[in-house]
């Protein structure tokens, strides 16, 4: 049973609602610069709160920390339960960090309906935080669904592409379809708890609380059914191959800010490690599940990478590169050992700096040439040396060059996978080569060589705001790359608890709570 450390001050509630309340306050301002400044202030405050939580977080512990628990709908066993542990705490910091960068990026690139844009962005930040902080499954589901509303408007109203209406609708319907299956899975978990609690006369008999659901046994056949239902919800969102076709559309048609959120915050794979694997450990390690998911993960790695190789549009390339990286995360998770889980968790955080960083680079390119097609570039390094340098650096992190964050995560994943099954590991390694190929080839054609015909003579290098964004990302990339210990220490306790849980399964973990008779 996981330990819970209650918080005396409701700091997680503050983190959760600060952005959306701040967003409402923005409504009062008419001056656009005032709106931008206030939005940035709110995002910085949010970052400060998140950093405070990160600093006060007890590392090497599996406990749920800063816990807040208030009954919400007691008759149904739904509660307002927030907490962070080693699995979720880094995502809170990452979300707050990216939100600040997106607002800085949007400073002069978003020109119309600035107020509404900032409000949507802050609302999106609240709902994303909600997904990471919720321990109650219904509360989690509420934020998971609410997230679609600001996302829909961000893509539809501020997207740059001609097909943005189509992309927004496709994204929402796709995700919604997946979450319907997930909701059924959550209901089945609740019913299973109810049956167990009724037999043992435990009050309340209904619960959606992760910690309580973890304490009851679930028969294997039921676990497998629930696993696939939750899988659909998380796989559509992640997206796991072959449920990925909304991603290239949403990333290409939507605004850069939205693309950074979609590519940088890996909510789908977070769902796997937060709910699927701990709640359904016996299903997660059953032969069929592991084989199917490993196959999908490996297919995603190679499919995504080979697709990325031939893309002419940089944002489409990044979409497929994301799919390829998610394949790594998935195989790391379902290697189901310490290194694999730790590597996947770290890679999810890393992608928030490297892939999201490359989307900012795509944004810099976009604001110079009004598109991200390869034909608009060529030989840019001469005209824009700073842009080209940051592009290369963040790109190398995305490839996983030693010394950058990508290496640490990818190495742990490959180590874990090779430990679990050398064949899977062997196939995954080839993905690393493709990863280098598609990025370097695109970089060579867009940045090096003679100046492209379409490149304007007056093209300018990064201005201070853009340098600030790229530098902030580069610092994080180097920090995790050279000294990952503080980040890994935060995860270790929870990852170890997860590995133990996988070994024991749901039935055994219940039995071990009872006193052992010694004759």
């Amino acid at each position, binding site marked *: 049973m996981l330990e819970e450390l209650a918080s005396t001050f409701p700091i997680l509630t503050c983190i959760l609602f600060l952005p959306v309340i701040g967003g409402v306050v923005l409504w009062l301002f008419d001056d656009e610069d005032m709106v931008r400044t206030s939005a940035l202030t709110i995002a910085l405050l949010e970052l400060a709160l998140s950093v405070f939580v990160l600093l006060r977080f007890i590392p090497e512990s599996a406990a749920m920390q800063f816990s807040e628990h208030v009954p919400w709908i007691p008759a149904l066993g739904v509660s307002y339960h927030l907490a962070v542990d080693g699995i979720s705490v880094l995502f809170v910091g990452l979300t707050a960090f990216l939100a600040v960068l997106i607002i800085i990026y949007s400073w002069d690139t978003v020109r119309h309906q600035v107020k509404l844009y900032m409000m949507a962005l802050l609302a999106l930040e609240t709902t994303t935080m909600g997904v990471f902080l919720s321990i109650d499954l219904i509360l989690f589901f509420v934020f998971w669904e609410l997230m679609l509303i600001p996302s829909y408007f961000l893509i539809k109203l501020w997207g740059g592409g001609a097909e943005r209406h189509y992309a927004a609708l*496709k994204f929402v*319907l*796709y995700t919604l379809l997946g979450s319907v299956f997930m909701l059924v899975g959550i209901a089945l978990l609740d019913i299973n708890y109810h049956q167990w609690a009724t037999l043992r006369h435990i009050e309340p008999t209904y619960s959606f609380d992760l910690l309580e659901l973890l304490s009851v046994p679930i028969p294997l056949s039921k676990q497998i059914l629930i696993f696939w239902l939750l899988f659909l919800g998380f796989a559509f969102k992640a997206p796991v191959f*072959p449920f*990925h*076709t*909304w991603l290239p559309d949403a990333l290409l048609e939507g605004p850069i800010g939205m693309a950074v959120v979609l590519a940088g915050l890996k909510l789908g794979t977070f769902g796997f490690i937060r709910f699927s694997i701990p709640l359904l450990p016996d299903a997660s390690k059953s032969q069929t599940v592991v084989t199917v998911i490993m196959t999908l993960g490996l297919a995603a790695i190679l*499919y995504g990478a*080979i*697709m990325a*190789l*031939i*893309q002419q549009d940089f944002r489409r390339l990044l979409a497929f590169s994301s799919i390829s990286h998610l394949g790594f995360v998935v195989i790391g998770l379902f290697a189901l050992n310490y290194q694999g889980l730790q590597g996947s968790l770290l890679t999810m955080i890393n992608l928030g700096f490297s892939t999201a960083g490359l989307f900012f680079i795509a944004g810099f390119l976009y604001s110079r040439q009004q598109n991200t097609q390869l034909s608009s570039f060529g030989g840019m390094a001469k005209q824009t040396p700073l842009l080209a340098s940051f592009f290369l650096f963040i790109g190398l992190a995305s490839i996983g060059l030693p010394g950058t964050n990508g290496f640490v995560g990818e190495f742990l994943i490959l180590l874990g996978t090779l430990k679990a099954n050398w064949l899977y590991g062997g196939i995954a390694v080839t993905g690393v080569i*493709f990863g280098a*190929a598609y990025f370097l080839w695109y970089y060579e054609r867009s940045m090096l060589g003679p100046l492209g015909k379409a490149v304007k003579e007056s093209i300018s290098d990064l201005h201070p705001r853009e340098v600030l964004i790229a530098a902030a990302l580069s610092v994080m990339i180097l920090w995790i790359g050279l000294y990952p210990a503080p980040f890994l220490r935060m995860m270790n306790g929870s990852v170890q608890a997860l590995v133990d849980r996988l070994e024991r399964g749901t039935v055994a973990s219940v039995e071990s709570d009872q006193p052992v008779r010694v004759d």
Partner: protein
Amino acid sequence: MNLSAPDRLAARFQAAYRILLNKYYVDELYDLLWVEPTKKLGLLLDWFDRTVIDGLVHAVAQIAELFAAGSTWTEKHVIYGCVNVIGYGNHLAARQWRQLQSGMVHHYAAIIVAGLFLLAAIIQLIMQL
């Protein structure tokens, strides 16, 4: 002829010179074996992604649209039809019942008396149950 040593050697061993100049054609071999096939595979997968996978997604959307069209038709013709039958039936019944409104007091008195008996009978029936 006044060629330097390298030129003389190049002229004498032309085949060897060309192979060395082109680095044993290793790059060309890699291009032929790996790079070009991978690019071709990429193009094939791109077609597959847009046509087959996204095609399936669009097929799901179209099936949903088909169902929506079907239920719209049902709504319009079956459900509204039923509602209209009830409405028109009422209209017809009302035309008949209107004739009860004869305006003669003794007709009304007779109907009231008949109604009272009916009411009493119903109450009796309910009490028995």
